[in-house]
């Protein structure tokens, strides 16, 4: 029997839209009637901005509802609050907890001591993913808007680092069971990328790193994909270079537009074609990565709640 609920970790290089994808995934699952917790761990309040709600506190709060009774709760995990909660939950450190604070240890642990932050952030996700009420797990899925691809393996693996440092004791036991969850079939690490050289390379490297740390890789989400706007005829004409500005100018005149724009329009078309070619090349590289690919289009009007519904629909939600 599963020890935790489904955990979806969404990572991606900066600028690829991982927060948007994490939110769309949450909406998609809520659309199927699931109760979902969407967490962020970097203090950016990206979720609040996407859903257009006030900044999230360290408290699980309902931010959206899906069809069929699904719900999205959101939580901004703050390491300091997580540490105090952790201490009171597991150790009932009343007086000693205060002493820790007085000695600056809370501050030290959450801001200065390397790694502890990540331990606390993953620890809170672990707690939420294992929480139960009378009907089983509290949430049908926990989705984490995680640190970027370059850091993700280190972040998820931080508890095995801890396990290397602390050989016995409760921290060690906790670290071990967090690692067990991270490596379980309930966990899926999804990588978000755009179809450009560096993010694609980072995605491939990221998959390899995750796999060598025995962390389960889920889907690769190709985000911000530019749809091809060109009919076959146009593409062929642009490729052959047979499109003269004079001919285009004549067509423009029929629509009462200034023919002087013809050269710029052709240049715009060629640039579009070039980007399509580069995109296709990067897609081909990813097709060999061994993971399922999901494609989300670039929405030229930007991302708002309506766009999230749109993306959620396209995402369909992993099984």
């Amino acid at each position: 029997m599963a020890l935790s609920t489904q955990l979806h970790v969404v990572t991606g290089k900066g600028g690829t839209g991982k927060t948007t994808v994490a939110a769309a995934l949450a909406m998609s699952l809520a659309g199927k009637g699931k109760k979902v917790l969407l967490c962020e761990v970097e203090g950016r309040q990206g979720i609040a901005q996407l859903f257009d709600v006030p900044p999230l506190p360290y408290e699980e709060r309902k931010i959206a509802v899906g069809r069929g009774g699904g719900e999205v709760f959101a939580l901004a995990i703050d390491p300091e609050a997580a540490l105090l909660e952790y201490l009171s939950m597991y150790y009932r450190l009343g007086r000693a907890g205060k002493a820790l604070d007085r000695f600056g240890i809370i501050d030290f642990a959450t801001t200065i001591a390397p790694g502890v932050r990540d331990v606390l952030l993953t620890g809170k996700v672990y707690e939420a993913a294992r929480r139960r009420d009378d009907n089983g797990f509290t949430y049908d899925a926990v989705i984490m808007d995680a640190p970027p691809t370059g850091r993700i393996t280190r972040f998820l693996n931080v508890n095995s680092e801890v396990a290397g440092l602390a050989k016995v004791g409760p921290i060690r036991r906790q670290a071990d069971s967090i690692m067990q969850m991270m490596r379980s079939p309930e966990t899926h690490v999804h990588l978000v990328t755009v179809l450009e050289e560096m993010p694609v390379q980072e995605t491939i490297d990221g998959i390899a790193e995750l796999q060598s740390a025995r962390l389960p890789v889920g889907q690769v989400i190709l985000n911000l994909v530019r749809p091809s706007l060109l009919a076959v005829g146009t593409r062929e004409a642009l490729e052959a270079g047979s499109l003269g500005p004079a001919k285009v100018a004549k067509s423009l005149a029929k629509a009462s537009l200034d023919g002087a724009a013809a050269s710029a329009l052709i240049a715009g078309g060629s640039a579009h074609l070039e980007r399509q070619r580069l995109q296709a090349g990067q897609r081909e590289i990813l097709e060999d990565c061994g993971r399922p690919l999901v494609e989300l289009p670039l929405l030229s009007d930007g991302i708002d709640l309506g766009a999230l519904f749109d993306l959620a629909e396209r995402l369909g939600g992993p099984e």
Partner: protein
Amino acid sequence: MTGKAQTSPPSRKGRSSPRGGQSGPAAGPLDIDHLLGDRTTEIIVCCGSGGVGKTTTAAALALRAAEQGRKVCVLTIDPARRLAQAMGLTELDNTPRPVKDIGAEGGSLDAMMLDMKRTFDEVVEAHATPEKAQQILANPFYVALSSSFAGTQEYMAMEKLGQLHAQAGQIVQDSDLKGTAGAPTAKAWDLIVVDTPPSRSALDFLDAPDRLSSMLDGRFIKLLLAPAKGPARLLSAGFGIVTSALNKILGAQVLTDMQTFVAAFDTLFGGFRQRAESTYALLQAEGTAFIVVAAPEPAAMREASYFVERLAGEGMPLAGLVINRVHENGADGITASDAESATRKLGDGTATDQITADLLTIHAERMRVAAREARLKRRFSAAHSGVATVSVAALAGDVHDLDGLRQIGGLLAGEA
């Protein structure tokens, strides 16, 4: 570097530089060539959120400066593989290496990629006795701290900047003494361009010196050091409670390892703090220019705003904002709605009409994107009217060779 920064107090006046402040009259475009050509510019720091093209911007600025006669060293953090190869960054020895056949009028370009573990190890080796260095390098806390924990990269980027700056000044001073200034063998730099790590928060590297200092001054560290240093009178009544709580949570062995680590590190702490503080002072100095890099996306522009405010708050000299991958209006004179209605008219026409309709669809799409980006730029400049800004047009492809960097350099300098 000329070394004058150490001998004469920095003066803020009489500088007709393009460095805009946070407030004040509306700034014009960011004049990159003026900044690069100004010999008093000794350090350029490129910062911004992840994925906005910081590394490419840093490399393009460095290349352009070298080709304008500056002796440049560029410190990159994590360049794309092909870009690294193009700059000759194949040997990862944590030392700047000359980029071949670059430079004009005495200019040169050296490039390096930061190896954080190695930088940390070298600091330890340089400042501890060999015996103590071995002890530190083998401690499990040190291994974790230096190789895998978040934040270390930021500390080490700043450490390396301090080293490079000291190195540049040192060599010039030496050769000045020998009267061989400008000798082709002198490995001197008069400009260092720094890329910054893709932190969870783009501001982490600014906090690095301060965090390091506060860690070293922290009561917790003192507490850990206390038993090693002796008299129990140093310990307050709370100590017993704290250690027993820590033992309970961490297990005694962790505390012992940590104490050993801190004790072994103790002799290095003073030096660390001093260098962190002098690097911080270097960032605030006259010869430093920060360039905030962004992309025309809401999140990146928000981070840029935050960064601009933070730099102003810290008294760091901001040169301006670079907005990468901006979509310009292609064909002027045709609005998005005109293009769309023309598309419908032409859709049933001749083959060329249909092709033209396709081109107009692309144009309309581009106009919409450009309008959204223009809104973001306006919002930024309304809030930060004093910040000089330059937009770099989106290229169709990726930049992965020196010609591509030259092209970006030209766009940065406002060349059409």
